[in-house]
């Protein structure tokens, strides 16, 4: 399980880095999204994965015993997902506006000289 996740994570990082090095704005965004997912999986793997051991204290016990799934990384990932959702939504709208104004997808064309109002 861990090995599989690590392989997926590596693929996502590789794909993300490949995409952000491209010139297209859409691919830049896709790359950033892939990197975000890769980071989430990284945090998940680092929280030590155990199978079917929820962190619930039984009625007989005072504290958790044996090994159990660490809930903190999952809380972290949840937060990170929500944040990256908001950022991605904003980024898509921004890309759409830039595309509507410039009619180009090429990042190298984003160099309109200063027009000087305000």
């Amino acid at each position: 399980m861990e090995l599989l996740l690590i392989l997926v994570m590596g693929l996502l990082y590789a794909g993300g880095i490949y995409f952000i090095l491209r010139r297209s704005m859409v691919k830049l965004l896709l790359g950033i999204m892939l990197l975000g997912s890769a980071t989430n999986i990284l945090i998940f793997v680092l929280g030590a994965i155990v199978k079917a051991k929820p962190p619930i204290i039984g009625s007989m016990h005072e504290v958790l015993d044996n090994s159990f799934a660490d809930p903190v990384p999952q809380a972290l990932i949840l937060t990170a997902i929500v944040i990256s959702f908001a950022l991605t939504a904003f980024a898509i709208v921004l890309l759409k506006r830039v595309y509507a104004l410039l009619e180009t997808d090429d990042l190298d064309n984003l160099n309109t000289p200063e027009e000087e109002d305000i």
Partner: protein
Amino acid sequence: MIGNLILAPVFIHLVIAVLQLTAWRKTLTQRILSVGGALAALITAISLFTHVYNNGTVTVNASNWQAPFGIVFVADLLGSTMVLLTSIAGFAVSLFSATGLSRQRMLYGYFPIFHFLLMGLNGAFLTGDIFNLYVWFEVIIISSFVLMTLGGRKTQLEGALKYMSMNILASMFFLTGIGILYGMTGSLNMADLATKMNDVQNRSLVGITSIFFILGFGIKSAVFPLYFWLPSSYHTPPSAVAATFGGLLTKVGIYAMLRVHSLIFVPDDFTKKLLMVIAVLTILTGSFGAITKTNIRRLFSYLIVCHIGFMMGGIAMFTKVALMGTVFYLIHDIMVKTNMFLIAGVIMQQRGAMSIEKLGGLYKEYPKISLLIAVVLFSLVGIPPLSGFWPKIFLFKESFATHQYFFIAALIIGSLVTLYVIAKLWAEVFWKDTPPGIQVDNKFEAFPFYRKLLLVLPIGILALVTVYIGLNAEAIIQVAERISDELLDTSSYINAVFKN
């Protein structure tokens, strides 16, 4: 009770922003709320600072969870100083925005977002939890994206795209670092991490993790190979927005670097050398960039980069005197850089242009305002009694003591170029007559007196603070000395968090 005081600077801005959202499209209500809220935040920040200065570090546990398990907010001297500076700058920018911004931008929610940004900044300075710091960073960047794109001009959107992609990438590096840190130690509390880091066996992994943090904070604070987003985006938004960005956002990166490197990754020789190389190259590239620019705001953007290098150099040496220099420079830089962009805003209102070829004759027309601006420019350059001069003494002294001769050369070049650029600016914009054939679009002259006052008053307030820092340098040096002591010996921070 004192715990509530720590969170007050955060919550005041939150409440103000929510109230302003209910007053959507009522710009007058929003303006009054904004100035009033910023003033209230300033007063609480002053009382928090005096409390921390007199009684030492204070903490509050969120929902009363004990220290390493819950989120803890810590107001140590560095954090509360930063909150105080943010509040002063926030108050000045809020006053300036009340008249210095087009009505369209106010209608589409400039003020609520501005207060969310200030909330994020205060939260970042006060939190004692590394993941919480990440969340505050996200609050800051998403507010700054909105502020940067508000108005929707072509150049603005282009700048925002570069700004956005680099900042999201920086957050990703930061988050990756946090993930590995949690995997190594099982903790997110910075004080707890400080005690647990020494027990980690795999030192090379610690080194790699610290590189993730340097990358993340390096992009945010705009250091040498990672700064290109800054000069290509900071000149695009309106001046009030640029003032907040230029004064505060890059300095959050420096603050985070100071915090993380003092508590979690105490710099070893490799990190010190790396940071020093970065610092020298940042100063050089920033100053060379500033020479070539003729647009005032682009020029200021490069000066931001150049002066970030001064602070990085102090962190790179990581001795008491060097950190004093960094902290003092940070205090000076937030005040002056905010003011520089506000000045650019006033020049924009008076002349309708930002390129120095099209500007001129300001001294003849507005001698009093020009003299006020001169004070700010002098302190940026570091003319002796003013604020820019004192931190440089510490940086020079310590780089001689630690034999960092490249850094001394960079400091001299950086200061000289700042002097040259500012002298050029003064001669071209203020002393030179308006070039013939240029149509001057002077909106400022037609303003009623109260609007002129509201535009110039924030510059006056910040200039006054700058003069105070310069003339009463002894008090600031004492604060800087205590902060650098706390940074080098973190036991007071750790004890305050764990309450023992």
